[in-house]
């Protein structure tokens, strides 16, 4: 089962799902539940999910597997982004940066 977050909300895809094309949110976490194995978790920033013919493809601009996330760097990026949001409420870049950092941390299994 694949769980992803589109702009409409979370979507869970089981086998035999109807064809769907969805827009993913910035800073989402994608989860692939596998039988007999650990879940595959990835931080996905923007892009699409397309389901067709029992095949799920995720097209992301930037993606990172949870196991490959550098936790310290992500936490550092989050702190920095939050600091600049506090300094300037309308800092859109920092808001996106914070979202991305949070997604990376969540993908790595950290509490945010």
């Amino acid at each position, binding site marked *: 089962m694949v769980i992803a977050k*589109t*702009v*409409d909300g979370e*979507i869970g895809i089981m086998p035999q799902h*109807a*064809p*769907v*094309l*969805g*827009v993913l949110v910035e800073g989402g976490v994608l989860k692939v539940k596998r039988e007999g194995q650990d879940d595959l978790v990835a931080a996905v920033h*923007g*892009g*699409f999910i*397309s389901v*067709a*013919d029992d095949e799920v*493809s995720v*097209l992301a*601009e930037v993606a990172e597997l949870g196991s490959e996330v550098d936790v310290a760097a992500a936490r550092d990026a989050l702190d920095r982004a939050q600091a600049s949001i506090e300094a300037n409420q309308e800092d859109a870049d920092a808001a996106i940066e914070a979202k991305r950092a949070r997604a990376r941390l969540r993908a790595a299994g950290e509490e945010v």
Partner: protein
Amino acid sequence: MGAQLRLLRRRISSVKSTAKITRAQELIASSRIVKAQMRMQAALPYEREITRAVTGVVSNAASVDHPLTVAKENPAKAGVLIVTSDSGFCGGFNANVLREAEALRGLLEGRGLSVVPFVTGRKGVTWHSFRQREMGGQWVGFSRNPAYADAKEIANTLIDSFKDDNGIDEIHIVSTEFVSMLTQNVVVRRILPLEVEETEATESTTIPPYFEFEPTAGDVLETLLPRYVESRIFTALLQSAASEEAARRRAMKSATDNANELMRMLTQQMNQARQAEITQEISEIVGGANALADAAAGKE
């Protein structure tokens, strides 16, 4: 005679050092082709999926009107993205691309459009600035190793200009397609507005599935199309990078072969000159000795 010998020796040594350089360039290019090909392969799945998604949306939702899919009624300006290389030493690679771009320019101007060139690669930029042609955009420094961010930057410039009412109304791309190590073709494609290709359905092509959209077809298209353009440009850049190295390898190989041939010919000439010199010296010595002997015989 002695002067000619020295001249030939000097020419041989200069040809030899040129051959060394071109041989090294050839080897470097061969190793780079493999890397460039691998990058091309790595980009394929994304390109394939995104094309499939675009096909899915467009064939499902024919009613969706998007500025990027609709041809403008009275096109006035056409943008042409020309993909060339940063460095030379690659034979006719850039000349071929630029010739094709000129042909396209003539074609578009025949339709009453004014042409705005967008150029990547130092060679193409120099070519245009030398002719004092105004460019809509120019990018240099990544022809051998293009990154996705480069393609994104180019795509953003093109799309912004396309959406602008006074900007360009069509986008064409002239680049080199990598077919194999020996074959690279210059291709001209229109990327915007999207061309609906009527391909004949073969047995292997399945009917695109009927997609549901999250949230709506229009929103999906809005985000999907710029990505599609980026991906097309990125593919063109990667193919061009691989083609550039292949063209360079071929040009350097023939340069090395020519240098070797020249060296063989010059060595032959040099040996001939040396032999002639020796023969002349011997006949001078013999002649001198004979004269001395004759003189001595006359005294007695």
